[in-house]
């Protein structure tokens, strides 16, 4: 399902999964009586490392049947296969037999898709809505404010980046690339550095100052950022990126750029942000 979100001169750059299909992750599960559940859960939590995939959308426990002699029987998802060696998993679950199943890698966009993927994978997804699937809207005021910042850099003959606080509309950094002195001094890296420098100074004056990296800030750039800069924006936890030109060869945001990394929209990377491309010609 391909979606398009155009708001005035801004078009949202969606992530890789805007047209994703059902993906499957192999997992281990066991069947056990409900009475043993809490003990087993505590044991697993204690012993297993974190999952490499975000499986929060998967139902961990599935009720199987209730019989008079055995009581309630449950199916419990233990972990993804490959997280730890099979022998370790077997050791953890003791005498229970390990079964193999596959679960959906992604949260679905809609209730219908959720039901469909649950059926196709053979393991239920728990559907509590998916806020990420609701396309964001830019109010006319927000668009006007964003356009003013875009116009500030639109005529720059060098790659340039701004960091702006979208709540106060305050400019926090305005930097151009300086690759002659240091090949990694791209505009985005320098802008992040400038915000950090500013915050270190603020802390000197007021140790209570508590800004965290570039959390929720807007970043404006002339060009779609490269892999290094895009990941730097993930590490810096920005809220929104707005750029003018797509970088078809080195860009790491737009899934249609050659690398097709879509780094702004990979939940596995702990942080995602919104991206808009500005179309000068409306």
């Amino acid at each position: 399902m391909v979606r398009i979100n155009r708001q005035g001169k801004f078009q949202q750059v969606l992530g890789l999964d805007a047209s994703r299909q059902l993906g499957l992750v192999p997992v281990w599960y066991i069947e056990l009586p409900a009475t043993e559940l809490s003990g087993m859960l505590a044991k697993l939590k204690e012993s297993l490392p974190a999952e490499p995939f975000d499986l929060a959308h998967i139902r961990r426990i599935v009720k199987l049947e209730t019989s008079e002699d055995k009581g309630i029987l449950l199916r419990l998802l233990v972990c993804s296969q490959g997280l730890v060696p099979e022998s370790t998993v077997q050791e953890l679950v003791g005498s229970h037999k390990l079964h193999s199943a596959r679960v959906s890698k992604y949260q679905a966009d809609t209730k219908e898709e959720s039901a469909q993927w649950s059926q196709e994978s053979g393991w239920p997804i728990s559907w509590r809505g998916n806020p990420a699937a609701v396309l964001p809207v830019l109010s006319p005021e927000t668009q006007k404010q964003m356009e003013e910042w875009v116009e500030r850099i639109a005529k720059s003959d060098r790659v340039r980046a701004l960091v702006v606080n979208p709540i106060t509309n305050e400019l926090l950094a305005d930097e151009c690339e300086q690759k002659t002195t240091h090949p990694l001094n791209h505009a985005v890296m320098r802008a992040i550095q400038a915000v950090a420098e500013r915050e270190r100074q603020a802390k000197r004056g007021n140790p209570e100052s508590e800004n965290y990296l570039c959390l929720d800030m807007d970043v404006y750039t002339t060009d779609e950022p490269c892999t290094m800069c895009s990941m730097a924006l993930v590490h810096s936890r920005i809220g929104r990126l707005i750029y003018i030109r797509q970088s078809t060869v080195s860009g790491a945001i737009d899934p249609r750029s050659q690398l097709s990394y879509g780094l702004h929209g990979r939940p596995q990377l702990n942080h995602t942000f919104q991206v808009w491309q500005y179309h000068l010609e409306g």
Partner: protein
Amino acid sequence: MDFMALAVEQAKQALADNEVPVGAVFVHNNKVIGRGRNDTNRSLNGTRHAEFMGIDEILQSHPPEILKETTLYVTVEPCIMCASALRQLEIKVVYFGAANDRFGGCGSVLSANKDPGPFRPYPAYPGFYREEAIMLLRNFYVQENPKAPVPKVKKQRVLKDNIAELDYTKYVTKDEFVRIYGQDKLDLFKSI
């Protein structure tokens, strides 16, 4: 792999400074030309990773071209940002300890070191001083990170000393594996 021991020393210093314990050493003609350790908490800059600290040291006294003949030893797989930075500098080869399941750019999440794209690709070999690297990270993560925005409720975290096997197939080809680790270790080269 004595250079990796130096990288581990850098990581230990990072841990002592309350930084995520990752350390890096850059070696040119058998000589250390740059060192780095994670510095994100002190600098308030989420991009000050060990690799960048080392590169900055090198560029103070060398032209960028020296990186083309330089080997990096780093305790944890370079993240996607660093993997791309190293490729833009055309680093010769990277040896690392632990995989970086969350952000790794040399095979774990992406292969920014060798995916088709601009700049010369480079090989990145995992598994050197891996246990030391992992135990340092676990030491760090049993402490809370008070700077994270919405602190998640963490239950009493205990150091887990069982270490899962490394899936070498994510990082190297079979030929590379034999060349770097030896034919006798081939039973380790399997998809997990």
